């Protein structure tokens, strides 16, 4: 077996519909605030589901050096969210990265070696800015009113800015973040739908453990607040279309009356760090990374395995990696997407790993509060889990008052609970693609 260094969590940055940065996020989460409203970014009236989770307003300039403002023009919304999360994460970790030094913040002296600073960022299938692209495509309309590809090739495409493609390559989240914060060590972009953040954080954990980097910024971000991103899950029947007039009650995971999920934008980036590196710079340690496990759905690439096997494999692998017994778990953080067949498969997966122990421990998920933001979901759940452990408080999970009788999770729908948590686990899985991944953290002890 290779060397295995201890890895700890030292920084959290989130951008969610209920708050940007961990303090607003935590306050909202623990008081049961919901971030789901009628969509404002565009007129959703043509869609059956017209609600979503949008980020509170923010200024990108607050998160990048002045010299980088020109590059902000080629950022899609997904990239902007990742850049916002990255700033919050490094500030929270007390890392004086290039961005922080250039902005004249922190104590001004760099405290991370760029060649030992990696990035692993989950991303989605980034949607083009539809107004821009559709407007350009419309210029290639032939005399018959139909799109003419020859006209497009000859002239129409000139209406797109030369750097158009660079807004939408999934690895541009990591590209911008690594430039802004000068992360030159191992870098990756995981594109596994809703499992992306878990896989990215797990891979970063391994990267540091084997000594290939000392610090990694990892997680994921995605915006599904875009007409194309709303059309896709709508076509696939994933959305709650009955809650337009009561958006705060949309997305009811594991419930008898679940009707589907709700789109959102958001994500999270977290700082993982080799323990000795964190200690050497006197960093605050939230928790220690204990286990990572992954599995795949071999039953179908786009439907849940009713037996919950992929989730069970991921969870069992993580439990084994953490050298724990299932009975050692004190907090469960499921994905809880709110789509019944997926929720049922998830219950089975957790149950087959943790058995009766599952209903004895608290559970929470951020989905009803923050919505379904693709590659960003897992990092938000991970951040909530880390804060729960560090603050010995489990936030409530909205919209879980009428759980399905088969649900084995113990949610508190209204109030936070005090709980001393030693070990906590979170699961993410892709709705299509079949990837499943689990992460386990433990309370940090010398």
């Amino acid at each position, binding site marked *: 077996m290779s060397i295995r260094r201890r890895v700890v969590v030292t920084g959290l940055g989130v951008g969610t519909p209920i708050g940007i940065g961990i303090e607003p996020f935590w306050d909202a989460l623990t008081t049961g605030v919901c971030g789901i409203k009628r969509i404002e970014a565009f007129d959703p009236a043509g869609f059956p589901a017209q609600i979503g989770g949008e980020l509170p307003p923010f200024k990108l300039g607050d998160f990048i050096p002045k010299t980088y403002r020109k590059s902000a023009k080629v950022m899609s919304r997904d990239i902007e969210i990742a850049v916002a999360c990255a700033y919050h994460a490094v500030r929270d970790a007390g890392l004086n990265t290039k961005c922080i030094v250039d902005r004249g913040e922190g104590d001004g002296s760099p405290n991370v070696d760029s060649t030992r600073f990696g990035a692993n960022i989950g991303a989605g299938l980034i949607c083009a800015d539809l107004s821009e692209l559709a407007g350009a495509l419309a210029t290639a309309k032939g005399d018959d009113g139909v799109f003419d590809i020859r006209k497009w090739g000859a002239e129409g495409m000139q209406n797109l800015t030369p750097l158009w493609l660079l807004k939408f390559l999934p690895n541009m989240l990591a590209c911008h973040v690594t430039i802004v914060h000068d992360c030159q060590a191992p870098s990756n972009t995981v594109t596994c739908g809703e499992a992306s953040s878990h896989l990215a954080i797990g891979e970063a954990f391994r990267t540091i453990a084997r000594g290939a980097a000392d610090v990694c910024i990892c997680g994921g971000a995605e915006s599904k607040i875009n007409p194309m991103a709303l059309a896709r899950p709508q076509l696939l029947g994933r959305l709650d279309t009955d809650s337009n007039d009561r958006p705060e009650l949309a997305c009811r995971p594991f419930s008898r009356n679940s009707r589907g999920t709700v789109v959102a934008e958001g994500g999270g980036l977290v700082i993982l760090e080799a323990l000795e590196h964190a200690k050497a710079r006197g960093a605050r340690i939230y928790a220690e990374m204990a286990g990572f496990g992954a599995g795949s759905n071999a039953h179908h690439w786009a439907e849940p395995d009713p037996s919950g096997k992929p989730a069970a494999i991921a969870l069992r692998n993580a439990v084994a990696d953490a050298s724990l017994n299932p009975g050692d778990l004190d907090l469960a953080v499921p994905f809880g997407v709110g789509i019944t067949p997926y929720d049922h498969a998830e219950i089975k997966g957790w149950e087959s790993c943790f058995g009766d122990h599952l209903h004895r421990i608290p559970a929470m998920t951020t989905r009803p509060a923050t919505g379904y933001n693709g590659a960003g979901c897992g990092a938000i759940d991970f951040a909530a889990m880390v804060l729960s452990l560090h603050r010995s408080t489990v936030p409530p999970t909205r919209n879980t008052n009428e759980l399905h009788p088969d649900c084995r999770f113990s949610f508190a729908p209204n109030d936070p609970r005090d709980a001393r948590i030693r070990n906590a686990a979170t699961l993410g899985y892709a709705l299509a693609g079949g*990837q499943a991944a689990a992460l386990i953290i433990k309370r940090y002890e010398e």
Partner: protein
Amino acid sequence: MDRRVVITGMGWVTPLGHDIEQVWSGLLEGRSGVAPTKNFDASTFPTSFSAEVKSYRVADVIGDAARRHEGASRNTRFALGAAAKAWAHAGLDNFVGLDPTRVGVYLGGGEGPLDFAPFAAAAVRGCVDDEGKTQPLDTVRWAEEALRLLNATNEREQDPNLAAGHLAVYFNAQGPNCNTLTACAASTQALGEAMHMIRYGDADMMISGGTHSMIHPLGVTGFNRLTALSTRNDSLQTASRPFDRTRDGFVIGEGAGILILEELDLARSRGAHILAEVVGYGSTADAFRITDIHEDGRGAIAAMKVALGSAGLTTADIDYISAHGTSTEENDKIETLAIRKLFGDRAAQVPISSVKSMLGHLIAAAGAVELITCVLAIRDGMVPPTINYTEPDPNCDLDYVPNQARKVEVRAALSNSFGFGGQNDTIIIRGFES
């Protein structure tokens, strides 16, 4: 001691064909897979040619099983065919005794392709009012059109992780499953990370590599707008000319390359034929600019250096370099500089070739296909040429194996892949020695 990781099977779907030996012969003969684009009407595009996969049907490889995967994207169909061949090559078709939870998938699978016709139709209708006048996009009108025109399955199958999901089902691979999309570096990255998963013990076998087609209207539009593609429409088979002074951009290709990586003890216990050992991997970010490579080759040098370090090798041990060699002005110059800086005096003595001169640039799939050529170079003691090399460039002054394949004993080969956005990945393989 780390667990050792070996290659036991390989398969590909390329612009020169779909059989390992037939394509390899073509590469050694210096054949070009470039032709006028047929995937869509590109006749008026600045670039009207590409290296397409021709006459490929996934059912020809996997038979009736193809029906189960109906509706899969072009990327997924490529991946299924390449992986099925790799699986058979590794002697796994009739092998019982694998623990499916210890078999994983790690791909560098591309997104899409976008279902362009209905997308464009909805876009146009969303921008045209009742009088037929063009207006800014009306999302209400667009939504009605899009929900009517777009097909749910086609939309779902565009997700980049879908090919990996299909492979998991086809091979009953229940272990770790992941997809990376670091642009043109993706499949090298996938292979490197898959190696680490086996080394660490997350899995005993990984189906790894990449698959991608960006030969579709918006893919070519994007690269044409970036002026990254060659526009040599009048001499298309000579358009991909890596390291040549007159190069004017890359030629877009498509396809898949899949390798079976497995832990040495497993390979031995099942009597597998070992093709090569994966010994080193390095990944770095330029962290420089979104459009340009770092002018000193900083990230590329670091990736090669990390890979050498993880392999426990030095530059003196490398007998062959499969270059990223895209045929763009910037890449070829800076890749040359990086090799020169890292390899020093030895740089000019190591044969370097770019099979992109023949296959075009398979984007996310490029690295995996190129790694397969490295395995074959080790096996046969032959390295493929860089074709279309006619005019030396003072900025590219190394040995690019111009135009003719060459007999070279290759013990260790290094393969580079660099992606837009400053992503650098290097992987090193070695002929297997117990």
